């Protein structure tokens, strides 16, 4: 059973047991505009919650993607590196950035559910 949670920095996490798949929200991609470059963390990297983990660049500006929880990077999505425009066309699904092994599930407590995130971006 997958649960999706959201950060106030506009990342989404699809949580499946102790693994979270992380991307940026459709709202975030619409604010960024055309994405032309994505830089992902290395597999095996230990990330601390709120640490800059990836970079997404539009024509105009670079933005950090933060680790929503502490943990180790298990896998990255080469498809968004090869085709950054996927972030614009499919932010909530195909354009995931990385999978992280959640070190401490209590960190999920501060995240938002879909209704709370909708209110946050309204």
């Amino acid at each position: 059973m997958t649960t999706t949670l959201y950060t106030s920095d506009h990342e989404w996490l699809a949580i499946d047991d102790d693994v979270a798949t992380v991307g940026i929200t459709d709202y975030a991609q619409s604010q960024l505009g055309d994405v032309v470059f994505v830089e992902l963390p290395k597999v095996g990297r230990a990330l601390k919650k709120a640490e800059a983990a990836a970079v997404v660049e539009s024509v105009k500006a670079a933005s950090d993607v933060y680790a929503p929880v502490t943990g180790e990077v298990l896998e990255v999505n080469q498809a968004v590196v090869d085709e950054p425009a996927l972030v614009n066309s499919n932010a909530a699904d195909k354009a995931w950035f990385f999978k992280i092994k959640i070190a401490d599930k209590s960190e999920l407590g501060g995240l938002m559910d879909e209704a709370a995130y909708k209110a946050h971006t309204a």
Partner: protein
Amino acid sequence: MLARDDQNPPRRTPLYALHISLGGKMVPFAGYEMPVQYPAGVLKEHLHTRASAGLFDVSHMGQIALRPKSGRIEDAAKALERLVPQDIVAIPQGRQRYAQFTNSDGGILDDLMVANFGDHLFLVVNAACKAEDEAHLRAHLSDDCIIDSLGDRALIALQGPKAEAVLAKLCPETPSLKFMDAGPRKVDGLDCFVSRSGYTGEDGFEISVPAADAERLAKTLLADSDVLPIGLGARDSLRLEAGLCLYGHDIDTATTPVEAALEWSVQKSRRTGGARAGGFPGADKILGHFDRGAARRRVGLKAEGRAPVREGAALFADTTASEPIGKVTSGGFGPSLNAPVAMGYVPAALSALGTIVYAEVRGQRLPLAIAAMPFVKNTYKR
């Protein structure tokens, strides 16, 4: 928040309502609320301009008439030559030239366009500098010229390979204009000033139109299926690919025209040995740079990878050096090249084409090759 509480509420151009109706995303820019992009987005707007025609609102820029008190245009031209290193006297009627206001240290106060309209000079200056430029002109040229700020005019740029065909429907003389021709023309029956110029590297036109008629003219141009409205985002990526300087970024009060690789814009008559050499602010320093070279130089920079290198990134001679040799002054992604492009300053000794320097981006040193500009070949109709 109520705008009336602000000390300096953002200004709006005569096309503000049109931008809103077209879905423009408005941002503060040089004291104005300007569209950074429309629903098509920066990438599509950029590529559309290179393939077809893009319409830009550049009404925030300053338009100034310099009218000679003597009635002789050469007196206005000679007077303006006291403030710029360009040959203004030699601009024929109906032609326009790129120029820079310099300061006593040889730095650039602003860059501008100067056109000879027969009985007066017509100047277009940057939005952020226009108040200072006008004060500068009044302080130094008032004995010779009436300085007339044309605040009641809008400025529309139509740029791209289809711009000529689109404008020709409203102004039959359009095809006969060559690059940098400029003068009063009727456009759709309106009293406009048309120049064949722009800041995208594309063939195109800038049209000064009375503010009251600006929206009607813009709507008429946009009604053509070849024309899309283009925001400041694509304007910036287009001018970067064209290797053109952005004032306040690639050139400023601390850069001379020689350091900025703008030697081409300074005619021989104003250089050492020329008929009217010197006589502009900072002439000693600028002519010294012409005669002996400048220590640093603006160059084009091309990355091997896909990571954009942005303005402000420090440049290094190698991967381990601790002291930067220069910095990036403009940088981003070039949609026409599908690759990152940048420009910046390096020591003259490292400015040869093909030299590799390194930009620091997020703690990494990315190799950049000094590259020829423009990055995208310009298509001016000379």
